């Protein structure tokens, strides 16, 4: 179900979709209002840049507006919207990848990826970035793969299909991205490298799966 039980004044997403297809000019806007923050989050995290994210979100929503009749009702409206916005983001990632130069150097955090190498100027300034800022430091293709796999819970095989690459490539991008994020998200406090965030449960990177777009809101 997609209706927030705390606010039963709101009609169901499916009803709004039917109203939109039936010509109600306000129905789609209400859907956008409901799910905008969720869609913004995935766009910003996937693309790492607010301007790119706004472009992709607009493209995706306009696309969804026009293609509303293609919504079959076999998935929640929020999942359908989510998929369209993610595709709009991936379009941008793939187009950017097709361009010759990547503005982000690939190895700028390399020295930080070695653990336990003793005092190091880089370790000394290790700071805990917020997740969006940390993601923004990644190369676009690594970021897209990692966000989809680790944050959106999309199965690796599906991510490979979406990005147009092999499953092993997705795994490799995720692995390198996690290694780069490590010093940014987990402060390196000491030589031995104790986990610095004991309140975060340590789980296998591949064992967790959350269905995308499952956020009721």
């Amino acid at each position: 179900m997609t209706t927030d039980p705390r606010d039963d004044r709101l009609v169901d997403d499916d009803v709004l979709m039917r109203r939109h297809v039936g010509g109600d000019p306000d129905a789609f806007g209400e859907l956008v209002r409901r799910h905008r923050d969720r869609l913004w989050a995935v766009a910003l995290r996937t693309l790492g840049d607010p301007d790119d994210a706004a472009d992709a979100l607009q493209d995706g929503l306009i696309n969804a507006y026009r293609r509303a009749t293609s919504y079959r009702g076999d998935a929640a409206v929020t999942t359908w919207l989510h998929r369209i916005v993610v595709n709009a983001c991936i379009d941008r990632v793939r187009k950017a990848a097709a361009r010759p130069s990547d503005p982000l150097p690939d190895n700028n955090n390399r020295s930080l990826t070695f653990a336990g190498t003793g005092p190091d100027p880089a370790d000394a300034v290790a700071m805990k970035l917020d997740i969006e800022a940390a993601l923004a430091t990644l190369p676009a293709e690594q970021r897209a793969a990692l966000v989809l796999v680790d944050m959106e819970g999309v199965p690796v095989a599906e991510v490979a299909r979406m990005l147009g690459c092999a499953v092993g490539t997705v795994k490799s991008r995720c692995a390198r991205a996690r290694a780069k994020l490590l010093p940014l998200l987990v402060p390196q406090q000491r030589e031995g490298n104790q986990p610095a965030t004991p309140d975060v449960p340590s789980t296998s990177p591949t064992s967790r799966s959350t269905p995308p777009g499952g956020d009721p809101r």
Partner: protein
Amino acid sequence: MTTGHLDATRLAEHAEGLLGAREAAAVEAHLGECEACRATAADLASVSAMLAAAPPTLRTPAHVVARLDRALTDEVTRTPEPAPVIQLSWFRRRAPQLLAAAATVGVLGFAGWVVASGSGDDDAGEATTAESSGGEDARDDAADGGLATDSDLESAEEESAAAPLQSEDGEFPAPPPELADQIRAIAEQGPAERGADDTCGLALAEELGDELVGAAETDVTGEAAVLVVVRSDNPAFVDGWVLPDCDATADEVLTALDVELD
């Protein structure tokens, strides 16, 4: 292998099962005897856990909200789609402004609505095909975000009478369907039926430089108005202009429609 510690990338690749059997075994062996690398492996897992635990929503910045609202409002006013056999021209009088806008910001508003001609007239059929491909070129240019070239603009100007222009400002209401029938009725009568002293619509025709076909009263806009029909540059089409009175010019147009003749 046992000199120093494993780098985090290697450990992350190991966790993904990306290493070959021998390399994986070596990493396992090292992890078995190196507490620091075990801790690094655990930290890598916690990176994934932190990402998974991030809140699923982020507050959309106000300027993005405003931008999305604007884009969706534009999209709402752009509908409904025209009926397939009729060419809408939104509108010839906007052509100079739209072309000027296209020249400055690279947005070409035509394209969309060119329909294949069902006419038996070969010349007209070819003309329509040419316009259709020209419209697609214009749309491609717009989609690429590229500026229209001078030759694009020239050819667009030549086609502007028959190639439909979409109103960017939504100024005109969509013409009602019966308007097409009224335009056809006037076109079938033809200029021969028009009295020599009938000057209704002449001001518009002269302004446009088009041949006046005829004019009649109409109430399609919900109020008394005059429908003036002129010969389009494309022989397969006539243009119907709804004006407040017989002497009105293009600036006063209430709505307008290009109709393909049978």
